[in-house]
C-alpha cells in the first residue's frame, strides 16, 4: 500500500492576533504509513503538541494540508473522522472528568455515536487495557496515574479508530508504570494494526516505540531520521546530536561552559 495513512504537508499553525501573533508551527511535513509508528520529538516550545492538536482538529487556525488515507481534511471535522482518529493525552490527572465514573467515561463516546452493546463493550475495553471490571464504577480520584492512563487508552479505543495520536502519554508516570503503559500500547498496536503518531521529549521512549522520527525545534522540523539511524548515533544536525547526548545522561565535557 503506497498511500500513507496520515500525511501532513506544509503545516503552519498560528496563535493570537496583532501583538500576540505567533507562529507555533512552520512548514512541517511528514508521512506515516499504515500500521507504522512515527515519533515527533522536541523540547518544550518546539510545536510538537501543536501539530498533534491541529491534526486532531482541536485547533482550527492552520493552513497546509492534512490527509488521512488520501482524503484531505477540512479544519472542521465530522463525526466520521472521530471514528478514524483518537488521541491519548499527557496528563492522566487532567484527561478524565473528575465527576464521572470510569463507566460513564467509556460509554460516552458510544452514546454520542449511537453504538449499542454498551455494557459488553465497556467490559471488554477494561479487559483489553488490563483493568478488570472492578474498576468500572470508580472515580478518577480513586485511581493511580497508571490506571488513569489505561482508562484514557481504553476511552480512545472505544470508537475503534485506526490512528492514535499520543501526546507524551507516559511523561507524567513513574518509570515502572511507564513500562506497563508502553507495553500496553505496543501490544495494542500489534493486535489491531493501529497507526501511531507519538509526541514526546524522551528519546529513549521514542526509540522504543517508533520506527521513524522527526525532530522539531521552534516550530520547524530540524531532521527526519529512522530510529536505527538514531541508535547508531548517526544524526546529521547539531541539535539532534545535542538532544541525543542529553538523553544518555550527564556528560560534563559535553555540556560544561556554556553561558546563557
Amino acid at each position, binding site marked *: 500500500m503506497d498511500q500513507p495513512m496520515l500525511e501532513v504537508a506544509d503545516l503552519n499553525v498560528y496563535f493570537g492576533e496583532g501583538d500576540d501573533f505567533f507562529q507555533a508551527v512552520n512548514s512541517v511535513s511528514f508521512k506515516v504509513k499504515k500500521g507504522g509508528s512515527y515519533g515527533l520529538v522536541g523540547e518544550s516550545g518546539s510545536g510538537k503538541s501543536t501539530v498533534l492538536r491541529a491534526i486532531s482538529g482541536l485547533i482550527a487556525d492552520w493552513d497546509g494540508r492534512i490527509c488521512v488515507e488520501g482524503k484531505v481534511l477540512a479544519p472542521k471535522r465530522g463525526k466520521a473522522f*472521530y471514528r478514524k482518529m483518537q488521541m491519548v493525552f499527557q496528563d492522566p*490527572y487532567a484527561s478524565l472528568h473528575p465527576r464521572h465514573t470510569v463507566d460513564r467515561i467509556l460509554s460516552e463516546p458510544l452514546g454520542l455515536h449511537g453504538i449499542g452493546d454498551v455494557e459488553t463493550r465497556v467490559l471488554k475495553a477494561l479487559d483489553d487495557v488490563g483493568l478488570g471490571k472492578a474498576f468500572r464504577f470508580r472515580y478518577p480520584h480513586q485511581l493511580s496515574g497508571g490506571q488513569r492512563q489505561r482508562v484514557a487508552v481504553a476511552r480512545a479505543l472505544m*470508537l475503534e479508530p485506526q490512528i492514535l495520536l499520543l501526546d507524551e502519554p507516559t511523561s507524567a508516570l513513574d518509570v515502572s508504570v511507564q513500562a506497563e503503559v508502553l507495553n500496553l500500547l505496543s501490544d495494542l498496536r500489534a493486535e489491531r494494526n493501529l497507526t501511531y503518531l507519538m509526541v514526546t521529549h524522551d528519546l529513549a521512549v521514542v526509540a522504543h516505540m517508533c520506527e521513524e522520527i522527526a525532530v522539531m525545534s521552534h516550530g520547524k522540523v530540524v531532521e527526519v531520521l529512522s530510529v536505527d539511524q538514531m541508535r547508531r548515533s548517526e544524526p546529521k544536525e547539531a541539535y539532534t546530536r545535542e538532544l541525543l547526548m542529553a538523553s544518555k545522561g550527564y556528560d560534563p565535557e559535553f555540556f560544561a561552559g556554556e553561558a546563557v
Partner: protein
Amino acid sequence: MSEQTELSGLKAWLSTDVPASRFQAKSIQFYLGWLKLVSNPLAFLGFLILLVLVFCAMFAPFLAPVDPLTQDLAKRLSPPGVNGYLLGSDELGRDILSRIIYGSRITLFIVTLVAVTAPVFGLLVGTFAGYLGGWIDEVLMRVTDIFLAFPKLVLALAFVAALGAGIENAILAISITAWPAYARIARAETLTIRNSDFISAVRLQGAGTLHIIVRHIWPLCLSSIIVRMTLDMAGIILTAAGLGFLGLGAQPPMPEWGAMISAGRKFILDQWWVATMPGLAIFIVSLGFNLLGDGLRDILDPKKSKS
C-alpha cells in the same frame, strides 16, 4: 441481631471499594461527603439549625402554641414568660413565638424560591458566555455588569416599587439582583475548565456544545455555586427582611420576620422583645447558612479530590 446485620449490610454497601452500579458509586460519594459534614462540628451545627428551620416550617401548626394571627389586646406587649407567652406578645397581643414559627415558612419560601431561580439563571448565562466566548460572552457579560452596577437593595426596592408590594414580587426582585454573581462564578469556572484535556477528549468524540456544557461543565460548576448560594442565603434573608421592614415585602398580618422587626421598632426601648426575638431568629438562620456554607466548601472543593 438481624437489625445489626442489616445495618452492617448498608454500611458495607456504602464502604465497598468496588461499586457495582452508577447509583452505588454516587451514593458512596454522597455518604463520604456526609461523613465529612458530620465530622466538622460547626458545619454540622449549621446543618442542624437549618433542619430546625425546615422542621418548624413543616410542622408549624403543631408546634405553635396559638394561632399567630389571634389578637388579644388586653395582653398586648407582655414580656417573655408572662401570661403564657414564651417569647412575649407584640403590640396587638399576638404570640411572638407562634409568629416566629409560622414566619419560618415565609423565610423558607423566600429562600427556596430565590435558590431555584437566581443561581440557575446565573449558571446558564455564565457557562454559555464562558464556553462560547466571542461576542456572546461580551454581550452577556455587559448585561451582567449592568445588573451588578446597582446596589442590591436599591435595585430590589425599585422593582418592588414598580411591581407592587407583596412577598412574591419581593422574591422576584431579590432574584433579579442576585443572579449576576452566580453568572460571574460560573463563567470563571468555565473558563478554567474549557481548556482541560477531558473537554478536549470529549470534543474529539464529536460532542456538541450543549452536551459539553450540560454534562461536563455544569457538574463542575455546581460545587462553587452551591457554596456561594448557602453563603448568600444570609444576605437574601436580610434583604427580604429589609424589604419587609420597609413595608414592601410581606404585607400585614403575615408574620414575616422583617416586618415584625419593623413593627417592633417603636417599642424597642421598653418592650425590647417585640423586635429582638424575630431579629434573633434571622440571626440564627443566617448563621446556620453561613456555617453550612463554609462546611460545604470544604467538602465540595474539587482540589481535595485530586489524588
